[in-house]
Protein backbone atom coordinates (compact mmCIF):
# COMPACT_ATOMS: atom_id res chain seq x y z
CA UNK A 1 0.00 0.00 0.00
CA UNK A 2 1.31 3.42 -0.82
CA UNK A 3 1.79 6.14 1.74
CA UNK A 4 -1.14 8.07 0.29
CA UNK A 5 -3.50 5.11 0.80
CA UNK A 6 -2.31 4.70 4.38
CA UNK A 7 -2.86 8.42 4.97
CA UNK A 8 -6.48 8.08 3.84
CA UNK A 9 -7.03 4.99 5.95
CA UNK A 10 -5.63 6.73 9.02
CA UNK A 11 -7.90 9.73 8.47
CA UNK A 12 -10.92 7.46 8.01
CA UNK A 13 -10.00 5.58 11.19
CA UNK A 14 -9.88 8.87 13.07
CA UNK A 15 -13.38 9.75 11.87
CA UNK A 16 -14.59 6.32 12.99
CA UNK A 17 -12.86 6.73 16.36
CA UNK A 18 -14.40 10.16 16.92
CA UNK A 19 -17.85 8.84 15.98
CA UNK A 20 -17.47 5.98 18.47
CA UNK A 21 -16.57 8.50 21.22
CA UNK A 22 -19.80 10.37 20.55
CA UNK A 23 -21.90 7.19 20.43
CA UNK A 24 -20.23 5.92 23.59
CA UNK A 25 -20.90 9.14 25.50
CA UNK A 26 -24.49 9.07 24.28
CA UNK A 27 -24.95 5.55 25.66
CA UNK A 28 -23.88 6.79 29.08
CA UNK A 29 -27.37 8.31 29.24
CA UNK A 30 -28.80 5.37 31.10
CA UNK A 31 -27.46 2.87 33.63
CA UNK A 32 -28.55 0.04 31.33
CA UNK A 33 -26.34 1.04 28.40
CA UNK A 34 -23.60 2.96 30.22
CA UNK A 35 -21.14 0.10 30.47
CA UNK A 36 -21.57 -0.73 26.83
CA UNK A 37 -21.03 2.97 26.07
CA UNK A 38 -17.69 2.87 27.80
CA UNK A 39 -16.73 -0.16 25.70
CA UNK A 40 -17.74 1.64 22.51
CA UNK A 41 -15.62 4.60 23.53
CA UNK A 42 -12.68 2.29 24.35
CA UNK A 43 -13.04 0.68 20.90
CA UNK A 44 -12.82 4.13 19.32
CA UNK A 45 -9.66 4.75 21.34
CA UNK A 46 -8.06 1.46 20.23
CA UNK A 47 -8.88 2.20 16.57
CA UNK A 48 -7.39 5.70 16.77
CA UNK A 49 -4.23 4.48 18.51
CA UNK A 50 -3.75 1.60 16.06
CA UNK A 51 -4.20 3.96 13.12
CA UNK A 52 -1.58 6.33 14.50
CA UNK A 53 0.83 3.42 15.07
CA UNK A 54 0.34 2.19 11.49
CA UNK A 55 0.88 5.74 10.27
CA UNK A 56 4.13 6.02 12.25
CA UNK A 57 5.39 2.63 11.06
CA UNK A 58 4.66 3.65 7.47
CA UNK A 59 6.71 6.81 8.01
CA UNK A 60 9.65 4.70 9.14
CA UNK A 61 10.91 4.63 12.72
CA UNK A 62 14.31 3.97 14.27
CA UNK A 63 14.90 1.51 17.08
CA UNK A 64 15.08 4.33 19.64
CA UNK A 65 11.67 5.63 18.56
CA UNK A 66 10.26 2.15 19.03
CA UNK A 67 11.81 1.91 22.48
CA UNK A 68 10.35 5.26 23.50
CA UNK A 69 6.87 4.26 22.33
CA UNK A 70 6.83 0.75 23.76
CA UNK A 71 8.71 1.63 26.95
CA UNK A 72 6.61 4.71 27.71
CA UNK A 73 3.35 2.91 27.01
CA UNK A 74 4.32 -0.14 29.07
CA UNK A 75 5.38 1.98 32.04
CA UNK A 76 2.41 4.35 32.02
CA UNK A 77 -0.15 1.78 30.96
CA UNK A 78 1.07 -0.71 33.56
CA UNK A 79 0.91 1.80 36.40
CA UNK A 80 -2.51 3.03 35.22
CA UNK A 81 -3.86 -0.51 35.00
CA UNK A 82 -2.60 -1.47 38.45
CA UNK A 83 -4.00 1.64 40.11
CA UNK A 84 -7.34 1.39 38.32
CA UNK A 85 -7.77 -2.24 39.38
CA UNK A 86 -6.84 -1.85 43.03
CA UNK A 87 -8.13 1.57 44.03
CA UNK A 88 -11.18 1.77 46.31
CA UNK A 89 -14.36 3.29 44.93
CA UNK A 90 -14.28 6.03 47.55
CA UNK A 91 -10.95 7.17 46.14
CA UNK A 92 -12.40 7.73 42.66
CA UNK A 93 -12.24 11.54 42.68
CA UNK A 94 -8.51 11.66 43.42
CA UNK A 95 -7.81 9.08 40.71
CA UNK A 96 -9.77 11.10 38.16
CA UNK A 97 -7.73 14.08 39.29
CA UNK A 98 -4.46 12.18 38.78
CA UNK A 99 -5.52 11.22 35.26
CA UNK A 100 -6.31 14.90 34.64
CA UNK A 101 -2.79 15.75 35.76
CA UNK A 102 -1.05 13.27 33.46
CA UNK A 103 -3.37 14.07 30.52
CA UNK A 104 -2.79 17.81 30.87
CA UNK A 105 0.92 17.24 31.44
CA UNK A 106 1.22 15.12 28.29
CA UNK A 107 -0.58 17.77 26.22
CA UNK A 108 1.72 20.50 27.53
CA UNK A 109 4.82 18.39 26.78
CA UNK A 110 3.73 17.90 23.17
CA UNK A 111 3.47 21.65 22.66
CA UNK A 112 6.84 22.28 24.33
CA UNK A 113 8.45 19.71 22.06
CA UNK A 114 6.84 21.32 19.01
CA UNK A 115 8.05 24.75 20.02
CA UNK A 116 11.61 23.65 20.69
CA UNK A 117 11.83 21.79 17.35
CA UNK A 118 10.27 24.52 15.24
CA UNK A 119 12.15 27.32 16.91
CA UNK A 120 15.37 25.40 16.29
CA UNK A 121 14.52 25.19 12.59
CA UNK A 122 13.60 28.83 12.56
CA UNK A 123 16.93 29.83 14.05
CA UNK A 124 18.81 27.67 11.54
CA UNK A 125 16.86 29.05 8.59
CA UNK A 126 17.13 32.62 9.85
CA UNK A 127 13.40 33.03 9.25
CA UNK A 128 10.22 31.51 10.57
CA UNK A 129 9.31 28.32 8.69
CA UNK A 130 6.50 26.47 10.45
CA UNK A 131 6.40 28.76 13.45
CA UNK A 132 3.77 31.38 12.77
CA UNK A 133 1.50 33.54 14.89
CA UNK A 134 -1.43 31.14 15.00
CA UNK A 135 0.67 28.12 15.70
CA UNK A 136 2.49 29.95 18.49
CA UNK A 137 -0.86 31.01 19.93
CA UNK A 138 -2.02 27.38 20.13
CA UNK A 139 1.35 26.27 21.53
CA UNK A 140 1.14 28.87 24.31
CA UNK A 141 -2.50 28.01 25.04
CA UNK A 142 -1.62 24.31 25.26
CA UNK A 143 1.43 24.85 27.48
CA UNK A 144 -0.40 27.22 29.83
CA UNK A 145 -3.67 25.28 30.16
CA UNK A 146 -1.87 21.94 30.35
CA UNK A 147 0.53 23.15 33.05
CA UNK A 148 -2.15 24.76 35.21
CA UNK A 149 -4.06 21.49 34.96
CA UNK A 150 -0.98 19.46 35.83
CA UNK A 151 -0.06 21.15 39.11
CA UNK A 152 -3.64 22.07 40.00
CA UNK A 153 -4.79 18.45 39.63
CA UNK A 154 -1.85 17.14 41.64
CA UNK A 155 -2.71 19.51 44.49
CA UNK A 156 -6.42 18.59 44.26
CA UNK A 157 -5.58 14.92 44.33
CA UNK A 158 -3.16 15.44 47.21
CA UNK A 159 -5.83 17.23 49.21
CA UNK A 160 -8.28 14.36 48.77
CA UNK A 161 -5.64 11.79 49.65
CA UNK A 162 -4.68 13.77 52.73
CA UNK A 163 -1.12 14.36 51.50
CA UNK A 164 -1.81 18.08 51.21
CA UNK A 165 -3.75 19.87 53.93
CA UNK A 166 -7.40 19.60 52.98
CA UNK A 167 -8.49 22.80 54.72
CA UNK A 168 -8.27 25.96 52.69
CA UNK A 169 -4.62 27.03 52.86
CA UNK A 170 -4.27 30.75 53.29
CA UNK A 171 -1.30 32.06 51.35
CA UNK A 172 -0.19 35.53 52.38
CA UNK A 173 -0.44 37.85 49.39
CA UNK A 174 -1.78 34.84 47.46
CA UNK A 175 -4.11 36.84 45.29
CA UNK A 176 -1.49 39.46 44.47
CA UNK A 177 1.01 36.72 43.66
CA UNK A 178 -1.51 35.01 41.36
CA UNK A 179 -2.16 38.34 39.69
CA UNK A 180 1.56 38.88 39.08
CA UNK A 181 1.87 35.36 37.64
CA UNK A 182 -1.02 36.01 35.26
CA UNK A 183 0.42 39.32 34.09
CA UNK A 184 3.94 37.96 33.59
CA UNK A 185 2.69 34.77 31.91
CA UNK A 186 0.37 36.64 29.55
CA UNK A 187 3.09 39.15 28.68
CA UNK A 188 5.58 36.38 27.89
CA UNK A 189 2.96 34.59 25.78
CA UNK A 190 2.05 37.79 23.91
CA UNK A 191 5.67 38.54 23.04
CA UNK A 192 6.10 34.96 21.81
CA UNK A 193 3.04 35.21 19.59
CA UNK A 194 4.25 38.49 18.12
CA UNK A 195 7.64 36.91 17.48
CA UNK A 196 5.98 33.88 15.90
CA UNK A 197 3.94 36.13 13.65
CA UNK A 198 7.15 37.81 12.56
CA UNK A 199 6.13 41.21 13.92
CA UNK A 200 9.30 41.37 15.98
CA UNK A 201 12.51 39.40 15.92
CA UNK A 202 14.66 38.34 18.84
CA UNK A 203 18.06 36.77 19.35
CA UNK A 204 18.48 33.03 19.74
CA UNK A 205 17.60 31.80 23.20
CA UNK A 206 15.29 34.66 24.19
CA UNK A 207 12.19 32.89 22.89
CA UNK A 208 13.06 29.75 24.85
CA UNK A 209 13.47 31.81 28.00
CA UNK A 210 10.07 33.43 27.38
CA UNK A 211 8.44 30.01 26.93
CA UNK A 212 10.00 28.73 30.15
CA UNK A 213 8.76 31.89 31.90
CA UNK A 214 5.19 31.27 30.74
CA UNK A 215 5.52 27.60 31.71
CA UNK A 216 6.74 28.34 35.24
CA UNK A 217 4.06 31.00 35.76
CA UNK A 218 1.37 28.49 34.70
CA UNK A 219 2.75 25.72 36.95
CA UNK A 220 2.84 28.03 39.98
CA UNK A 221 -0.57 29.46 39.16
CA UNK A 222 -2.07 25.96 39.18
CA UNK A 223 -0.79 25.40 42.72
CA UNK A 224 -1.92 28.82 43.95
CA UNK A 225 -5.34 28.34 42.39
CA UNK A 226 -6.18 25.07 44.13
CA UNK A 227 -4.36 25.38 47.50
CA UNK A 228 -6.76 27.92 49.04
CA UNK A 229 -9.82 25.82 48.14
CA UNK A 230 -11.26 23.47 50.77
CA UNK A 231 -11.38 19.70 50.28
CA UNK A 232 -15.17 19.62 50.04
CA UNK A 233 -15.10 21.92 47.02
CA UNK A 234 -12.58 19.68 45.25
CA UNK A 235 -15.18 17.86 43.11
CA UNK A 236 -16.08 21.11 41.37
CA UNK A 237 -12.40 21.91 40.93
CA UNK A 238 -11.63 18.44 39.55
CA UNK A 239 -14.51 18.74 37.13
CA UNK A 240 -13.21 22.12 36.02
CA UNK A 241 -9.70 20.69 35.59
CA UNK A 242 -11.20 17.83 33.57
CA UNK A 243 -12.57 20.47 31.20
CA UNK A 244 -9.15 22.16 31.18
CA UNK A 245 -7.44 18.91 30.22
CA UNK A 246 -9.85 18.41 27.34
CA UNK A 247 -9.15 21.94 26.14
CA UNK A 248 -5.38 21.45 26.44
CA UNK A 249 -5.62 18.24 24.39
CA UNK A 250 -7.68 20.09 21.79
CA UNK A 251 -4.99 22.79 21.61
CA UNK A 252 -2.38 20.05 21.15
CA UNK A 253 -4.47 18.91 18.18
CA UNK A 254 -4.22 22.40 16.64
CA UNK A 255 -0.46 22.42 17.18
CA UNK A 256 0.13 18.94 15.75
CA UNK A 257 -2.50 19.33 13.02
CA UNK A 258 -4.38 16.30 14.36
CA UNK A 259 -8.16 16.52 13.99
CA UNK A 260 -8.73 13.50 16.23
CA UNK A 261 -7.20 15.34 19.20
CA UNK A 262 -9.20 18.48 18.42
CA UNK A 263 -12.52 16.61 18.34
CA UNK A 264 -11.96 14.41 21.40
CA UNK A 265 -10.50 17.27 23.44
CA UNK A 266 -13.42 19.55 22.57
CA UNK A 267 -15.93 16.84 23.57
CA UNK A 268 -14.25 16.54 26.98
CA UNK A 269 -13.98 20.31 27.34
CA UNK A 270 -17.70 20.73 26.70
CA UNK A 271 -18.76 17.92 29.05
CA UNK A 272 -16.44 19.11 31.81
CA UNK A 273 -17.84 22.63 31.53
CA UNK A 274 -21.42 21.35 31.82
CA UNK A 275 -20.66 19.10 34.77
CA UNK A 276 -18.84 21.89 36.57
CA UNK A 277 -21.77 24.24 36.13
CA UNK A 278 -24.27 21.60 37.29
CA UNK A 279 -22.27 20.92 40.44
CA UNK A 280 -21.78 24.57 41.26
CA UNK A 281 -25.49 25.26 40.69
CA UNK A 282 -26.47 22.44 43.03
CA UNK A 283 -24.47 24.17 45.75
CA UNK A 284 -25.90 27.56 44.86
CA UNK A 285 -22.45 28.94 44.18
CA UNK A 286 -20.84 30.33 41.11
CA UNK A 287 -17.69 28.69 39.79
CA UNK A 288 -15.90 32.01 40.23
CA UNK A 289 -16.95 32.08 43.89
CA UNK A 290 -15.40 28.67 44.51
CA UNK A 291 -12.18 29.48 42.68
CA UNK A 292 -11.74 32.91 44.24
CA UNK A 293 -12.18 31.47 47.72
CA UNK A 294 -14.73 29.72 49.88
CA UNK A 295 -17.02 31.74 52.14
CA UNK A 296 -15.87 29.49 54.99
CA UNK A 297 -12.84 31.72 55.32
CA UNK A 298 -14.84 34.92 55.62
CA UNK A 299 -15.37 36.56 58.98
CA UNK A 300 -19.15 36.67 58.44
CA UNK A 301 -19.37 33.12 59.72
CA UNK A 302 -18.86 34.32 63.27
CA UNK A 303 -22.23 36.03 63.34
CA UNK A 304 -23.92 33.04 61.74
CA UNK A 305 -22.52 30.94 64.54
CA UNK A 306 -24.20 32.90 67.28
CA UNK A 307 -27.36 33.28 65.21
CA UNK A 308 -28.56 29.78 65.99
CA UNK A 309 -29.78 29.24 69.51
CA UNK A 310 -31.44 26.29 71.20
CA UNK A 311 -30.05 23.20 72.75
CA UNK A 312 -28.89 19.99 71.19
CA UNK A 313 -30.61 16.77 72.18
CA UNK A 314 -28.34 13.77 72.23
CA UNK A 315 -29.73 10.33 71.54
CA UNK A 316 -28.26 6.99 72.67
CA UNK A 317 -27.65 4.03 70.36
CA UNK A 318 -30.51 2.06 71.88
CA UNK A 319 -32.97 4.93 71.60
CA UNK A 320 -32.02 5.44 67.99
CA UNK A 321 -32.32 1.71 67.28
CA UNK A 322 -35.81 1.56 68.83
CA UNK A 323 -37.01 4.57 66.86
CA UNK A 324 -35.76 2.98 63.65
CA UNK A 325 -37.00 -0.53 64.37
CA UNK A 326 -40.57 0.57 65.14
CA UNK A 327 -40.95 3.04 62.29
CA UNK A 328 -42.92 2.19 59.18
CA UNK A 329 -41.07 4.48 56.81
CA UNK A 330 -37.38 5.36 57.08
CA UNK A 331 -35.44 7.62 54.75
CA UNK A 332 -31.64 7.45 54.88
CA UNK A 333 -29.79 10.62 53.93
CA UNK A 334 -26.18 9.72 53.14
CA UNK A 335 -23.59 12.45 52.71
CA UNK A 336 -19.96 13.39 52.47
CA UNK A 337 -19.16 11.99 55.93
CA UNK A 338 -20.37 8.56 54.86
CA UNK A 339 -18.05 8.60 51.87
CA UNK A 340 -15.09 9.65 54.02
CA UNK A 341 -15.77 6.99 56.66
CA UNK A 342 -16.38 4.39 53.92
CA UNK A 343 -19.58 3.48 55.70
CA UNK A 344 -21.63 2.49 52.65
CA UNK A 345 -21.64 -1.19 53.57
CA UNK A 346 -22.76 -0.45 57.13
CA UNK A 347 -25.64 1.67 55.91
CA UNK A 348 -26.81 -1.12 53.67
CA UNK A 349 -26.60 -3.69 56.44
CA UNK A 350 -28.80 -1.49 58.61
CA UNK A 351 -31.25 -0.97 55.76
CA UNK A 352 -31.48 -4.74 55.18
CA UNK A 353 -32.24 -5.34 58.84
CA UNK A 354 -34.97 -2.71 58.81
CA UNK A 355 -36.46 -4.06 55.62
CA UNK A 356 -36.55 -7.52 57.12
CA UNK A 357 -38.80 -6.01 59.78
CA UNK A 358 -41.16 -4.82 57.05
CA UNK A 359 -40.05 -1.20 57.12
CA UNK A 360 -40.12 0.85 53.94
CA UNK A 361 -36.53 2.07 53.46
CA UNK A 362 -35.31 4.47 50.82
CA UNK A 363 -32.28 6.68 50.28
CA UNK A 364 -32.48 10.41 49.62
CA UNK A 365 -29.71 11.36 47.22
CA UNK A 366 -28.84 15.04 46.96
CA UNK A 367 -27.32 15.93 43.58
CA UNK A 368 -23.97 16.75 45.22
CA UNK A 369 -24.02 14.08 47.93
CA UNK A 370 -20.63 12.43 48.32
CA UNK A 371 -17.73 14.03 46.61
CA UNK A 372 -18.98 14.33 43.07
CA UNK A 373 -22.44 14.33 41.48
CA UNK A 374 -23.54 10.73 41.33
CA UNK A 375 -20.68 9.64 43.57
CA UNK A 376 -23.09 8.53 46.28
CA UNK A 377 -24.90 6.35 43.77
CA UNK A 378 -21.65 4.62 42.89
CA UNK A 379 -20.75 4.04 46.53
CA UNK A 380 -24.19 2.65 47.36
CA UNK A 381 -24.19 0.54 44.20
CA UNK A 382 -20.86 -0.87 45.35
CA UNK A 383 -22.54 -1.91 48.60
CA UNK A 384 -25.27 -3.63 46.56
CA UNK A 385 -28.03 -1.22 47.49
CA UNK A 386 -30.95 -1.93 45.11
CA UNK A 387 -31.12 0.82 42.53
CA UNK A 388 -34.87 1.57 42.89
CA UNK A 389 -34.34 2.51 46.55
CA UNK A 390 -32.20 5.48 45.55
CA UNK A 391 -34.46 8.52 45.27
CA UNK A 392 -33.43 11.79 43.69
CA UNK A 393 -34.10 15.00 45.60
CA UNK A 394 -37.26 16.04 43.72
CA UNK A 395 -38.72 12.59 44.12
CA UNK A 396 -38.06 12.17 47.84
CA UNK A 397 -38.82 15.67 49.17
CA UNK A 398 -42.64 15.28 49.08
CA UNK A 399 -42.24 11.99 50.99
CA UNK A 400 -40.59 13.45 54.09
CA UNK A 401 -44.03 14.49 55.47
CA UNK A 402 -44.92 10.79 55.67
CA UNK A 403 -41.53 9.67 56.96
CA UNK A 404 -41.27 8.41 60.52
CA UNK A 405 -37.51 8.61 60.86
CA UNK A 406 -35.01 10.42 58.67
CA UNK A 407 -31.53 9.03 59.34
CA UNK A 408 -28.87 11.54 58.34
CA UNK A 409 -25.44 9.94 57.96
CA UNK A 410 -22.60 12.38 57.46
CA UNK A 411 -24.65 14.92 55.53
CA UNK A 412 -24.78 18.51 56.70
CA UNK A 413 -25.26 21.48 54.40
CA UNK A 414 -27.59 19.61 52.04
CA UNK A 415 -30.06 19.23 54.94
CA UNK A 416 -29.77 22.78 56.30
CA UNK A 417 -33.23 24.36 56.49
CA UNK A 418 -31.57 27.79 56.53
CA UNK A 419 -31.15 27.41 52.79
CA UNK A 420 -34.94 27.53 52.50
CA UNK A 421 -35.86 30.10 55.13
CA UNK A 422 -32.97 32.32 56.12
CA UNK A 423 -32.29 34.95 53.49
CA UNK A 424 -29.12 36.06 55.24
CA UNK A 425 -27.63 32.56 55.09
CA UNK A 426 -24.76 32.14 52.65
CA UNK A 427 -26.39 29.01 51.28
CA UNK A 428 -29.84 30.60 50.93
CA UNK A 429 -31.49 29.28 47.79
CA UNK A 430 -29.47 26.08 47.57
CA UNK A 431 -31.85 23.19 46.91
CA UNK A 432 -31.89 20.97 50.00
CA UNK A 433 -33.47 17.76 51.22
CA UNK A 434 -36.47 18.62 53.43
CA UNK A 435 -35.29 16.37 56.23
CA UNK A 436 -36.79 18.61 58.92
CA UNK A 437 -40.29 17.70 57.69
CA UNK A 438 -39.93 14.11 58.87
CA UNK A 439 -41.64 13.11 62.13
CA UNK A 440 -38.31 12.54 63.78
CA UNK A 441 -34.73 12.92 62.73
CA UNK A 442 -31.58 11.07 63.79
CA UNK A 443 -28.26 12.59 62.81
CA UNK A 444 -25.08 10.51 62.94
CA UNK A 445 -22.23 12.95 63.13
CA UNK A 446 -18.78 12.98 64.64
CA UNK A 447 -19.16 16.34 66.37
CA UNK A 448 -21.03 19.60 66.16
CA UNK A 449 -18.47 20.72 63.57
CA UNK A 450 -19.80 22.64 60.61
CA UNK A 451 -19.98 21.52 57.02
CA UNK A 452 -17.78 22.99 54.32
CA UNK A 453 -20.08 26.00 54.08
CA UNK A 454 -18.82 26.85 57.55
CA UNK A 455 -22.25 27.67 58.89
CA UNK A 456 -24.46 26.21 61.61
CA UNK A 457 -27.31 23.89 60.83
CA UNK A 458 -30.57 24.75 62.66
CA UNK A 459 -31.64 21.15 61.99
CA UNK A 460 -29.43 20.03 64.90
CA UNK A 461 -31.29 22.13 67.46
CA UNK A 462 -34.71 21.17 66.11
CA UNK A 463 -36.67 19.53 68.98
CA UNK A 464 -37.45 16.61 66.64
CA UNK A 465 -33.77 15.91 66.09
CA UNK A 466 -31.68 13.47 68.08
CA UNK A 467 -27.92 13.72 67.64
CA UNK A 468 -25.95 10.50 67.71
CA UNK A 469 -22.29 11.49 67.98
CA UNK A 470 -20.13 8.86 66.30
CA UNK A 471 -17.98 8.19 63.29
CA UNK A 472 -20.37 7.17 60.49
CA UNK A 473 -18.93 3.68 60.14
CA UNK A 474 -18.71 2.92 63.86
CA UNK A 475 -22.07 4.51 64.59
CA UNK A 476 -23.77 2.38 61.96
CA UNK A 477 -22.13 -0.78 63.29
CA UNK A 478 -23.41 0.05 66.77
CA UNK A 479 -26.87 0.74 65.39
CA UNK A 480 -26.89 -2.56 63.50
CA UNK A 481 -25.91 -4.42 66.66
CA UNK A 482 -28.56 -2.58 68.68
CA UNK A 483 -31.32 -3.29 66.15
CA UNK A 484 -30.33 -6.95 66.03
CA UNK A 485 -30.54 -7.16 69.81
CA UNK A 486 -34.12 -5.88 69.86
Amino acid at each position, binding site marked *: MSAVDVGYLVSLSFILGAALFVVG*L*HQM*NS*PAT*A*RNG*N*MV*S*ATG*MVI*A*ISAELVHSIQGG*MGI*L*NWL*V*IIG*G*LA*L*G*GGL*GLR*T*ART*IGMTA*MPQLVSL*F*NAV*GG*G*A*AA*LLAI*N*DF*VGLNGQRVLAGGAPGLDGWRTLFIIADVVIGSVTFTGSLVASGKLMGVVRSQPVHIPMGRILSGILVVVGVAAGAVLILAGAGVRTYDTGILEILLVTALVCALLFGILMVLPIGGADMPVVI*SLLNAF*TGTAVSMAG*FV*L*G*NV*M*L*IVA*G*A*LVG*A*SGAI*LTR*LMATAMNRSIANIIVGGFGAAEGTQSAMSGVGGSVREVSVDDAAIQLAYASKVVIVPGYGLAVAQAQHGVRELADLLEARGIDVSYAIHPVAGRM*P*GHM*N*VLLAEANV*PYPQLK*EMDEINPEFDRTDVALVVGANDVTNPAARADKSSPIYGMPILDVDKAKSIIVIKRSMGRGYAGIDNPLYVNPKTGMFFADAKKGLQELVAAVKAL
Partner: protein
Amino acid sequence: MIAADLIQYLTVFVLAILLGFEVISKVPATLHTPLMSGTNSIHGIVLVGAIGVAAIADNPLSYLIAFVAMAFAGANVVGGYVVTDRMLQMFRRRPVPATDKFAK
Protein backbone atom coordinates in the same frame (compact mmCIF):
# COMPACT_ATOMS: atom_id res chain seq x y z
CA MET B 1 -0.27 27.05 9.82
CA ILE B 2 -1.99 27.90 6.57
CA ALA B 3 -5.38 29.62 6.56
CA ALA B 4 -7.26 26.68 5.03
CA ASP B 5 -6.04 24.34 7.77
CA LEU B 6 -6.84 26.86 10.48
CA ILE B 7 -10.41 27.27 9.25
CA GLN B 8 -10.84 23.50 8.99
CA TYR B 9 -9.55 22.95 12.55
CA LEU B 10 -11.66 25.76 14.00
CA THR B 11 -14.78 24.41 12.26
CA VAL B 12 -14.22 20.95 13.69
CA PHE B 13 -13.42 22.41 17.13
CA VAL B 14 -16.58 24.51 17.35
CA LEU B 15 -18.85 21.74 16.06
CA ALA B 16 -17.31 19.21 18.48
CA ILE B 17 -17.94 21.54 21.42
CA LEU B 18 -21.59 21.99 20.41
CA LEU B 19 -21.93 18.23 19.91
CA GLY B 20 -20.41 17.67 23.35
CA PHE B 21 -22.94 19.98 25.01
CA GLU B 22 -25.77 18.29 23.16
CA VAL B 23 -24.80 14.69 23.90
CA ILE B 24 -23.78 15.24 27.49
CA SER B 25 -26.45 17.53 28.86
CA LYS B 26 -28.90 14.62 28.61
CA VAL B 27 -27.06 12.42 31.10
CA PRO B 28 -28.86 11.98 34.47
CA ALA B 29 -27.10 13.18 37.65
CA THR B 30 -26.78 9.58 38.83
CA LEU B 31 -24.27 8.86 36.10
CA HIS B 32 -22.25 12.03 36.44
CA THR B 33 -19.35 10.39 38.27
CA PRO B 34 -18.96 7.56 35.73
CA LEU B 35 -19.38 10.20 33.02
CA MET B 36 -16.61 12.33 34.45
CA SER B 37 -14.44 9.25 34.56
CA GLY B 38 -15.48 8.29 31.03
CA THR B 39 -14.64 11.69 29.53
CA ASN B 40 -11.49 11.55 31.62
CA SER B 41 -10.38 8.49 29.67
CA ILE B 42 -11.30 10.12 26.35
CA HIS B 43 -8.78 12.90 26.88
CA GLY B 44 -6.24 10.08 26.92
CA ILE B 45 -6.48 10.52 23.13
CA VAL B 46 -3.43 12.71 23.69
CA LEU B 47 -1.63 9.35 23.40
CA VAL B 48 -2.18 9.55 19.63
CA GLY B 49 -0.31 12.85 19.63
CA ALA B 50 2.43 11.38 21.81
CA ILE B 51 2.93 8.45 19.41
CA GLY B 52 3.22 10.87 16.50
CA VAL B 53 5.84 12.92 18.33
CA ALA B 54 7.73 9.83 19.55
CA ALA B 55 7.86 8.46 16.00
CA ILE B 56 9.76 11.47 14.66
CA ALA B 57 11.88 12.26 17.73
CA ASP B 58 15.56 12.63 16.75
CA ASN B 59 17.41 14.28 19.63
CA PRO B 60 17.83 13.52 23.35
CA LEU B 61 15.42 16.22 24.51
CA SER B 62 12.63 15.12 22.22
CA TYR B 63 13.19 11.45 23.11
CA LEU B 64 12.83 12.37 26.77
CA ILE B 65 9.75 14.55 26.25
CA ALA B 66 8.12 11.88 24.07
CA PHE B 67 8.84 9.15 26.62
CA VAL B 68 7.29 11.07 29.51
CA ALA B 69 4.32 12.07 27.33
CA MET B 70 3.84 8.42 26.30
CA ALA B 71 3.90 7.25 29.92
CA PHE B 72 1.50 10.00 31.07
CA ALA B 73 -0.95 9.45 28.24
CA GLY B 74 -0.69 5.65 28.55
CA ALA B 75 -1.65 5.81 32.23
CA ASN B 76 -4.53 8.12 31.36
CA VAL B 77 -5.97 5.83 28.66
CA VAL B 78 -5.54 2.42 30.28
CA GLY B 79 -6.38 3.49 33.83
CA GLY B 80 -9.29 5.66 32.74
CA TYR B 81 -11.14 2.98 30.81
CA VAL B 82 -10.51 0.21 33.34
CA VAL B 83 -11.72 2.22 36.32
CA THR B 84 -14.78 3.51 34.46
CA ASP B 85 -15.69 -0.05 33.56
CA ARG B 86 -15.28 -1.16 37.18
CA MET B 87 -17.62 1.58 38.27
CA LEU B 88 -20.27 0.88 35.65
CA GLN B 89 -20.15 -2.85 36.33
CA MET B 90 -21.75 -2.08 39.69
CA PHE B 91 -24.66 -0.29 38.12
CA ARG B 92 -25.37 -3.04 35.69
CA ARG B 93 -26.06 -5.94 38.00
CA ARG B 94 -29.25 -4.36 39.28
CA PRO B 95 -32.01 -4.19 36.69
CA VAL B 96 -34.57 -1.45 37.38
CA PRO B 97 -38.10 -2.92 37.52
CA ALA B 98 -40.34 -1.31 34.94
CA THR B 99 -43.03 -0.54 37.52
CA ASP B 100 -40.71 1.34 39.86
CA LYS B 101 -41.46 4.74 38.40
CA PHE B 102 -45.12 4.50 39.30
CA ALA B 103 -44.87 2.69 42.61
CA LYS B 104 -45.11 5.25 45.37
